[in-house]
């Protein structure tokens, strides 16, 4: 290893930004191949219906149309395997067979020379659908006479995992209890780039470009569904314009488009439009946490019990849409010393777009519920909302701390980050009070919340199949530059920069000597992709191991070239230096040239070539829960405290977030500006989920948020100034002590903003906020509940 660390913690510019910001990036929509056709999907206009017949004759008569297909044509395609034995099998098929279960389900596909023609021809399809009664809520789905989404099931329950932990139950005897039902609304990641797939079948090999977060998993899934060996499939995730979990799902279109390319013998592309995205890419959240806590008189929580109840939509999503509910349960006690829990999960199918992953993955829901419950307990017991947290937060002496969910919190700055966030939040609130003293319409308030986030988690719990490792190969070119290829992939979050710095650090080369390769199954070793705030940790673990193998060999070559002992060699600044002999050194280029070209100069016992491969499986992760649902799902745990300062217009209910403060600890900070970017972006999305974003349905199961006119993402005008303070509690078991930072920002805004709104209205004695998004009409109702409305009333 190098003895002179220089890249860790350096605020260096992102290497990918020149490409991404100057139009040099290549997205799926930029893939253009000779003779390429475009596809348009016919999607179900009904939430629940039997497919009686699809007549393609008229569409096929349009000149140029290359084909129109339905599930019946895909006789050589297998449905997605159902890996998880705990859940009922869904058997997702690329185009709907027999039945549709949500508006947006793909029924047929039309292929033509361009998208306009494809859509014109698609409009000529005649699809006979026999409507069935829709089921649009959990309550409807669980009703005794509910229509069944899957006829072979006895009910609409996809998975049910109740927990009855007697130790938790015992805590409720004789104690104060507080309870609540906390609901995080249905919203989604909505990346700037929608999904897209292009495919070419040539010379017996299939190449698929897809906007995905996990190219290797996509390749394996393709091999399960199509009659092809895995070696005959190459999946490329080119530049991906945001993922946020939406693209950590394997979608029907990712099978259909490659199948079309094989069937037609021509390249085929499909680029999702925004309307499709809002009804056919995965939705998320839509989770209710029904909780009760047993609390001592001084505010110390002793146990929490209840259920996570998830509306899964049609459940036709893989990896499983119910996994966030389990992750919520795994994070329910947050960074608090709550000795026992007994929280189960039930997830039901309804006639809405299937739920899947979204940044945060259950943890925002858990934090919303626990922080709301903590505020409620504080109010009930007459304890200050900050003080009750102090009494429950785990401190340095508690670490490592095993939570009641089984998570082993390895390190952290839970109290320190909280106190700093409290201090800064009060300061900002005072400043705003002075600034807005003359505004008669608004009241101000603040809220501070805490959470932990399991990062680098098991995937077995989510996929029922894959586990947790990843991999790295490093090839030293003869000129001393390094090609670093990894199984994780990027969607713009700065991973290339992170791995460039870490490779430079590990190999003792300059950053400009490193090229990172990702997102191509032919050019990278097998890996599970980027999700779960894992990429930096798993890739860098493998990278460190591969570097160490490579350095061992390179050091022997360098020592031989200088006639020195390998023990006296140290590597930095792109050179191998002999300790104690200033000026005596060889460059990486000399070593690599020797290894690859002038092999006559190699030591006798060293073979040519300079390449190393390694895998890394993060230590300590458990893949299966115990009987009470407990497991250590993640390799390490990031912590943070969030403070929001808001104004509430008591005449209109309009909420503005004025300031946002974060005390954030993801262990060793490798690049401060990249961490800040992750946190700030996550907060922006969190504010969207807290105040604006909801995928609405009417009582018939029709989606009502099908464009950006009605699905409101936050814009710059809704995002406040943010203060991000980094704390660094290195993860003892992680390479470089780093912890994931990809999801932390999104977890805090909903509970922090809810608490701030309540504080702003506290003198009115308003009701509790229990669900998101918190819209202006909701807030006005709260004001009315306290009798404090502005005239008229």
């Amino acid at each position, binding site marked *: 290893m190098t003895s002179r660390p220089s890249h860790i913690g350096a605020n260096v510019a992102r290497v990918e930004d020149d490409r991404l910001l100057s139009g040099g990036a290549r997205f799926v929509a930029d893939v253009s191949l000779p003779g390429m056709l475009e596809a348009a999907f*016919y*999607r179900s*206009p*009904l939430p629940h219906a039997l497919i*009686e017949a699809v007549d393609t004759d008229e569409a096929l008569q349009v000149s140029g149309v290359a084909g129109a297909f339905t599930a019946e044509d895909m006789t050589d395609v297998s449905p997605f395997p159902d890996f998880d034995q705990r859940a009922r099998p869904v058997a997702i098929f690329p185009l709907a067979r027999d039945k549709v279960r949500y*508006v947006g389900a793909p029924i047929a596909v039309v292929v033509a020379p361009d*998208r*306009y023609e494809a*859509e*014109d021809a*698609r*409009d*000529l*399809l*005649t*699809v*006979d*659908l*026999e*409507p069935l*009664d829709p089921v649009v809520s959990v309550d409807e789905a669980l009703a005794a006479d509910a229509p069944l989404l899957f006829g072979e099931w006895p009910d609409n329950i996809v998975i049910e995992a109740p927990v009855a932990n007697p130790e938790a139950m015992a805590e409720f005897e004789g104690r104060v209890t507080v309870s609540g039902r906390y609901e995080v609304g249905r919203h989604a990641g909505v990346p700037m780039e929608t999904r897209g797939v292009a495919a070419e079948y040539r010379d017996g090999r299939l190449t698929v470009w897809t906007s995905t977060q996990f190219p290797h998993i996509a390749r394996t899934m393709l091999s399960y569904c199509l009659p092809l060996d895995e070696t005959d499939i190459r999946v490329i995730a080119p530049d991906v314009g945001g993922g946020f979990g939406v693209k950590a799902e394997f979608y029907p279109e990712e099978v259909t488009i490659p199948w079309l390319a094989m069937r037609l013998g021509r390249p085929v592309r499909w680029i999702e*439009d*925004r*309307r*499709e995205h809002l009804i056919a890419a995965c939705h998320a959240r839509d989770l209710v946490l029904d909780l009760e806590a047993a609390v001592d008189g001084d505010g110390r929580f002793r146990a929490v019990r209840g259920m996570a109840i998830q509306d899964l939509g049609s459940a036709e999503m893989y990896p499983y849409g119910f996994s966030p509910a389990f992750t919520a349960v795994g994070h329910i006690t947050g960074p608090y010393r709550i000795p026992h829990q007994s929280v189960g999960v039930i997830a039901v199918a309804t006639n809405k777009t299937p739920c899947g992953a979204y940044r945060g993955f259950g943890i925002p829901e858990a934090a919303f519920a626990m922080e709301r419950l903590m505020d409620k307990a504080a109010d009930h017991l007459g304890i200050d909302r900050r003080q009750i947290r102090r009494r429950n937060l785990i401190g340095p002496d508690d670490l490592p701390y095993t939570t009641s969910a089984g998570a082993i919190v390895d390190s952290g700055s839970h109290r320190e980050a909280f106190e700093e966030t409290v201090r800064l939040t009060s300061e900002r609130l005072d400043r705003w009070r002075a600034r807005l003293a003359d505004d008669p*319409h608004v009241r101000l308030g603040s809220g501070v919340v805490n959470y932990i986030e399991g990062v680098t988690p098991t995937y077995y719990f989510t996929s029922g199949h894959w586990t947790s490792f990843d991999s790295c190969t490093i090839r030293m070119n003869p000129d001393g530059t390094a090609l670093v290829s990894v199984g994780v992939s990027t969607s713009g979050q700065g991973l290339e920069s992170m791995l460039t710095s870490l490779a430079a650090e590990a190999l003792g080369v300059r950053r400009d000597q490193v090229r990172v390769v990702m997102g191509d199954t032919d050019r990278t070793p097998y890996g599970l992709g980027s999700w779960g705030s894992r990429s930096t940790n798993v890739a860098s673990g493998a990278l460190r191991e591969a570097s160490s193998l490579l350095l061992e060999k390179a050091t022997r070559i360098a020592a031989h070239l200088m006639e020195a002992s390998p023990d006296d060699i140290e590597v930095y600044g792109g050179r191998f230096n002999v300790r104690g002999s200033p000026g005596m050194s060889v460059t990486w280029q000399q070593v690599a040239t020797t290894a690859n070209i002038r092999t006559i100069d190699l030591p006798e016992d060293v073979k040519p070539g300079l390449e190393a491969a390694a895998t890394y499986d993060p230590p300590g992760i458990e893949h299966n829960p115990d009987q009470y649902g407990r497991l250590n799902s993640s390799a390490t745990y990031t912590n943070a405290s969030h403070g929001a300062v808001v104004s509430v217009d008591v*005449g*209109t*209910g*309009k909420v503005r977030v004025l300031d946002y403060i974060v005390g954030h600890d993801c262990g060793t900070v490798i690049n401060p500006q990249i961490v800040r970017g992750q946190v700030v972006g996550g907060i922006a999305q969190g504010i969207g989920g807290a105040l*604006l974003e*909801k995928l*609405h349905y*009417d*009582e*018939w199961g*029709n*989606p*009502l*948020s*099908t*464009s950006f*006119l*009605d699905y*409101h993402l*936050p*814009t710059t*005008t*809704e995002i406040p100034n943010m203060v991000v303070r980094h704390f660094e509690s290195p993860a003892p078991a992680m390479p470089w002590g780093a912890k994931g930072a990809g999801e932390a920002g999104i977890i805090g805004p909903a509970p922090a903003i809810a608490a701030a709104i309540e504080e702003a209205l506290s003198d009115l004695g308003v009701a509790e906020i229990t669900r998101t998004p918190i*819209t*202006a*009409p909701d807030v*006005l109702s709260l004001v009315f509940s306290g009798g404090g*409305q*502005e*005239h*008229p*009333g």
Partner: protein
Amino acid sequence: MGWRGDERGRKCGSRVRNPDDVSVKPPPFKYARPESLDEVLRILSEYNGEARVLAGGQSLIPLLNFRLARPQVLVDIALVRELRQLEVERGVLRVGAAVTQNTVERSSDVARLCPLLTKALPFVGHVQNRVRGTVVGSIAHADPAAEMPAVALALQATMVARSAAGVRKIPADQFFLGPFTTALKPDEMLVEVRFPTSRKTRAAVTEVAPRSGDFAVAGVAGKLVTTRAGKARDVALALFGVGGSPQRLHDVEARLAGQRITGDLLDQVAALASHNARADSEDVHADAGYRAHVSGVLVRRAVEEMTR
């Protein structure tokens, strides 16, 4: 918006064929870009209702892409010079159909003589929209949640409609018939809107929208003159976003006229505005009750602002 059943469980059109909303890219259309108004009107006459005028396209292009509008021909007026006038003539501000919102927003003459327009325009979308969007186009489109129709109504603007057959002047209070529906005939085009001007008038726009630049959930466009004695006259208040069309609040205006503005009076007019608001817009963002309530709050704030 997807398929809607009339009644739960009832079989509804078991043969579903090409619902308009399933598509997103525009259906085929012809495109014309004439250089004279006469030619525009000739095309409108020839296609009689199957042609649509394209000005800034900020509403029409999305409608085309959703295939909710299926005109046979788009008539782009970008090259028609005679529709670009923005001038004050004999106390009237004349805004031609091709004048962008941004041009009007930045005009110092408009700010001085027709301040309600200047105050309302920053609420219309974002600056990117206003650089292309037109004042007249927004009025002709008659989105119930848009600011421009309410401004036209509050100012009692005159709509100048033309067709190959001739000119028709329509007062604002006879122009807006319902959501996206106006008194224009299929072969007519709104070529100009004439706003009365005044150096004494004060103006205010107050609205609630989920985000800056969104269509309003509820809003008020108002104007008022305060006499030397401190009394209100020439009051006009128009709500938007609340019902299917912009609506004048005549009773509220009458209550204010000739009065000195006091806190008590503001309380009364706010209550009256909430009561009289015809709030029949309901969507995922707000129900009718919310819209009616905040109408009163917003009227109160608009009047306060104009008399402060």
